[in-house]
């Protein structure tokens, strides 16, 4: 009934509505053109380039079919089978990084959000303070971290004081701690953003659930695990997706820390940094594009899997 009535009304004002829509689209035309030029077109073009042998300098692209992808498959600098962390291979470095940083970011973000949400004194200050690192340029933070974490840096000076002997471990200069140092750095800088997502979700939880829990005699700890945590499920999904995508795209910190080399011993060579090096230093656009397509497929698949795992579940109050 209602449907029929509405579509009738639509017909009568159809012309006006169309005009309205056209005006609307005229407004979004410029952003759409920019989106098309800088996202859509390069993306489609990357797929095209990945099937070609192109050094960037020659005008013509030589079609090679799936050759680039076969090379990626056999590239022992990109990945090896069986998977091995700390093997200096770009893909496993990236997964290793994601495996460490994602839970850390989520835990840190959630903890901080709960603290800020708890109504303690000066919460406004804490909210800004925790979000501050996310506002600062990651390049600037990394550049400063290089000084703090170098062999004679502040951190080692502090450790030396505590252990009582000279401690000069180069955190970014040793393959066993370089990527882990970036993990620590990024968990800290991005926790503010994660906090914001969690905070929004926390505030949307209705208070009557908490009241019911209180009446049932649940303590703080129990309320958190039995009420708050499950109700944050959509937030968990969203934060996990954002965090994983961000982790798989790691580039800037790795590039700055190793001055672009992915060293020491390939420990900070992430998939995107490898893509960059192949394209720029080795003048191999086709191969770089192929790596980009592979990465796209990996991230896309992972997101789909997450969607299937988390997405269907409704929140049951």
């Amino acid at each position, binding site marked *: 009934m*209602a*449907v029929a009535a*509405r*579509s009738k009304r*639509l017909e009568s004002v159809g012309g006006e509505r169309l005009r309205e*829509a056209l005006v609307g*689209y005229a407004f*979004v*035309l410029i952003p*759409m*053109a920019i*989106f*098309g*030029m800088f996202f*859509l*077109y390069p993306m489609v073009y990357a797929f095209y380039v990945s099937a070609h042998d192109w*050094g*960037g*300098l*020659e*005008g013509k692209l030589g079609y090679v079919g799936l050759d680039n992808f076969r090379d990626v498959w056999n590239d022992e*600098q990109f990945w090896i089978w069986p998977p091995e962390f700390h093997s*200096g291979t770009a893909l496993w470095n990236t997964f290793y990084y994601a495996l460490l940083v994602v839970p850390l970011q989520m835990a840190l973000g959630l903890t901080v959000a709960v603290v800020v949400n708890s109504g303690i004194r000066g919460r406004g200050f804490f909210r800004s303070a925790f979000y501050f690192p996310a506002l600062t340029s990651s390049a600037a933070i990394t550049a400063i971290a290089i000084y703090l974490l*170098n*062999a*004679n*840096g502040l951190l080692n000076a502090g450790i030396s004081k505590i252990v009582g002997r000279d401690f*000069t471990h*180069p955190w*970014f*200069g*040793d*393959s*066993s701690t370089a990527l882990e140092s970036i993990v620590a750095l990024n968990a800290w800088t991005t926790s503010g953003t994660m906090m914001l997502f969690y905070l929004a979700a926390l505030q949307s939880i209705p208070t009557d659930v908490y009241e019911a829990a209180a009446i049932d005699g649940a303590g703080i700890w129990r309320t958190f695990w039995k009420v708050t945590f499950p109700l944050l499920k959509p937030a968990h999904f969203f934060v996990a997706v954002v965090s994983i995508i961000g982790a798989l795209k790691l580039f800037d910190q790795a590039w700055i820390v190793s001055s*672009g*080399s*992915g*060293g*020491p*011993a*390939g420990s900070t*060579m992430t998939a995107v940094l490898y893509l960059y*090096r*192949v394209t*720029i*230093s*080795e*003048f*191999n656009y086709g191969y770089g594009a192929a790596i980009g397509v592979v990465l796209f497929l990996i991230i896309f698949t992972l997101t789909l899997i997450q969607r299937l795992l988390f997405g269907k579940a409704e929140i049951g109050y």
Partner: protein
Amino acid sequence: MEGGSVERTRSLRWLYLIGVIGAVTLLAGVTAAASAGKSEDAAPTTKAARTTVTLAGWSLAGNRAEQNALLRTIAQFERRNPNIDVDYQAIAGDYDAAMLARFAARRPPDVFYVDSLDVPDYLPALEPLNDDIRRNKFSTKPFFPRLLNAFRVRGQIYGFPKDWSSLGLVANTQMLNAAGIRTPPKTWAQFTAALQRLRARNAVPNGAPACLSLDWARILAFIYQNKGAWLNPARTRSLINSPQNRATVTQYLGWFRSGLARTPAQLGVGWCGQALGEGKAAFVFEGNWIVGFMQTGFQNVRYRIYPMLRNKAGGNLAFTVAYSIGKFSSKKAAAWRLLAFLAGPVGMRTWTGGGIALPSRSDVRIPPGRSALVNAAPSSRPWQFVSGFDRVVDLAGKELEATFEGNQTVAQMLQKIDAATKEALER
């Protein structure tokens, strides 16, 4: 109610699709127009008009002495060529990335730096110069042949070396005096002895006797000193996996193992020159670039550049950079004028006069105190391989670091580098 909103989203989706298609079409049009406009660029400029030539190089902002020398040289050219203006573009950050973008856009600078290592990769974008050389009767004889040859491919010259440097043994003389070292070490054995002495006398309290980089652009010099090589002279075969190379790398890493040397990372510095400046090492192996660096930040440190070490033979690397002309430059005549001046005797004298660089021409006077670097010319081989070798150098660097950390043996490392080298040569 609900049905209406579905219908609404459906029509919205339709319009969205139209929008996307429209944007893509618009974009294609813009691209086509841009490429159509390209051909108009080649229109000849009128003779009376002033021409502007672009000159690009990596930024020298970190080294004021070098930057001033280049600006002086450019000003001198403009005075002599009133109808040519030079637009100097200092490229900060990743030079290769920036240049590649300009090449790909077919809008390269007219004249630009090309590192000898990058010649094989840059080749498709470089203008061959033999015709210009003949037409303008530009003599290439004064250039040191090994340096010029770094930019010669199958008989064609693609650039003129703007300057060069070999490696020298750079020493903090105060520390040598403190350790009672009167004569600088000349051989590997003497070097080891000197390092031991420096350590015994605690002459470098805040660092290590030597700072060595985990860098093939250093180790390869030692490989040559041990009569080894990476490639054969024709650059067709891999010679990296040999007993003498194994011995060389083992010796180089041995200086770290015995605690006589440390890497820049271990010393908490960016590179070994900084370690020398900050008094964290008595010996480093660097080239002429150390001079400008020490002038800028560490005037109080007393140091000297001694000849590179030798073992079975003398061996050294030559690092050189050329000025080249872009193949797609629309102002080649003016670009040639600039190139010929910068690489000619007058321009090079201005550029190298202050001692921040070593002349690549024999008819330009060498700055005082650099004989150790210049005399190495006959035993220096250019830091240059074949096209696509960046990948191998990358891998070799990674494997070297892994070997340094004790994750594999020197023999295993050389095997891997050998395999990668062969693969690159086959391509």
